[in-house]
């Protein structure tokens, strides 16, 4: 292993990434092009949105429920150690869920569940020439597959996030009343007196960015699948890993931007 070898590999990797970015950009361009040029496949879109929602619902619920519980437990105990009583537990749980953990955790769950399904499905269609078949039958993958899936992600992810926020806050509530012995009214009053609409908007707006990103990664990885069933597995794993990492990376930058804009 010499340094030339390492340099060559790094160079190839960078070129490949740049190439993928370029191709994804073209794919996005084609999505916008066909969005205005063709009838939206409403049936297919609804089917996809429902599938994404149902696929991810139970895992989202479980994840956010326990996250809400542990937030409540940890902040309650810390607060007890410092102030001798649990303070602001409701707002700590609610702010964390609504601004960060709801959108981020839901996006991660959706990347792993629905995103993987989309990549596997489109990837299988690619390696079995079903994508080519779409062209020979008068349509194309952008119209028939991508637009409905983009729309479905943009529709389901925000709704799932709202659901996750709510379940997380309920989880926090259960721990705060049962374990920390905080009166129910204190928990809720705390939330409603400190939460502002823009705190909610902050988290909610981010979900659209995540949804767009997950749709792009999972569709692109599906369409660029090569090499049979093995290739489909590889593409799916890559799509999930990339989406999950990008959720966290993009989260920082979008949050910073929204904060700058006062949202």
């Amino acid at each position: 292993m010499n340094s030339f070898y390492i340099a060559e590999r790094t160079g190839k990797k960078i070129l490949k990434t740049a190439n993928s970015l370029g191709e994804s950009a073209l794919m996005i361009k084609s999505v916008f092009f066909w969005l205005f040029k063709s009838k939206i496949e409403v049936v297919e879109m609804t089917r996809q949105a429902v599938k994404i929602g149902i696929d991810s619902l139970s895992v989202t619920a479980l994840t956010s429920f326990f996250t809400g519980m542990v937030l409540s437990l940890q902040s309650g105990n810390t607060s007890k150690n410092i102030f001798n009583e649990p303070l602001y537990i409701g707002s700590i749980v609610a702010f964390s869920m609504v601004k960060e953990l709801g959108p981020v955790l839901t996006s991660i769950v959706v990347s792993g569940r629905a995103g993987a399904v989309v990549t596997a499905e489109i990837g299988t269609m690619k390696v079995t020439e079903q994508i080519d078949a779409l062209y020979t039958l008068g349509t194309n993958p952008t119209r028939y597959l991508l637009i409905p899936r983009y729309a479905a992600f943009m529709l389901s992810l925000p709704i799932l996030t709202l659901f996750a926020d709510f379940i997380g806050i309920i989880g926090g509530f259960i721990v705060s009343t049962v374990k920390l012995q905080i009166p129910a009214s204190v928990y809720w009053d705390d939330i409603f007196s400190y939460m502002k609409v823009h705190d909610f908007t902050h988290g909610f707006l981010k979900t659209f960015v995540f949804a767009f990103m997950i749709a792009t990664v999972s569709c692109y990885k599906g369409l660029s699948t090569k090499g049979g069933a093995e290739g489909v597995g590889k593409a799916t794993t890559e799509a999930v890993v990339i989406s999950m990492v990008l959720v966290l990376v993009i989260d920082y930058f979008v949050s910073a931007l929204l904060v700058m804009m006062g949202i």
Partner: protein
Amino acid sequence: MIIVENLSKKFPGKQVLKNVSCKIEDGDIFSVIGPSGIGKSTFIKCMIRLLKPDSGRIEVDGANIADIEDEFELAKARRSFGYLFQEGALFDSLTVMENVSFGLKYLTDIPAFKHSAVVSEKLALVGLNNVENLKPAELSVGMKKRVALARAVATGPKYVLYDEPTTGLDPVTGEMVTELILDMKKKTGVTSVVVTHDVKLALRISTRVAMLYDGEFTAVEPPEKFQRLMNPEIREFIEISSRQR
């Protein structure tokens, strides 16, 4: 009539088609033979413009479709063709009915309520009935091929392209598909282009046979004459193929 002139297509690091020319008359069954990986699928994918050739002409009934870039023009150009994919490429998530009627929705003005009648008619053409509500996973390999052919001809294309129609099939199913190609021509008068490494198939059904070798057609002849050609690459291919049986 299709006239192909000096067609070339390169993939990264590989010149697959160099200089392919041929003339396919209406009513022909034109076969292209050659070993795997030589560029047969690439050739018909260029014809239906699933791939863009690097240079050359593909004249379909007088119009050159090799250079078209515009998506709508491309879609229009593809209408002349039906394509039977090697493994059928049926849409897994759709029923036979939805698969066969798929093109009707995008390529014809036939109203939706008439689709099921068209589908039954096309399925009958390939010898199937009562399969409309099955999913591809529930069909045998042979049935998949038939449904895929029904889908390819559903919109009444003038040309049908067959990619390895008998590859991977048992002899009985292969024979059935062979009959189907001949039958399809007899019943609908389509012009067929068959690419295959199955020499026996090509010699049996074709009006003319071409051999793709090193990016070019080395010979384009009627089967009787093709069999007797002395080009070494053709002799070798025919001999190796007959030894494998």
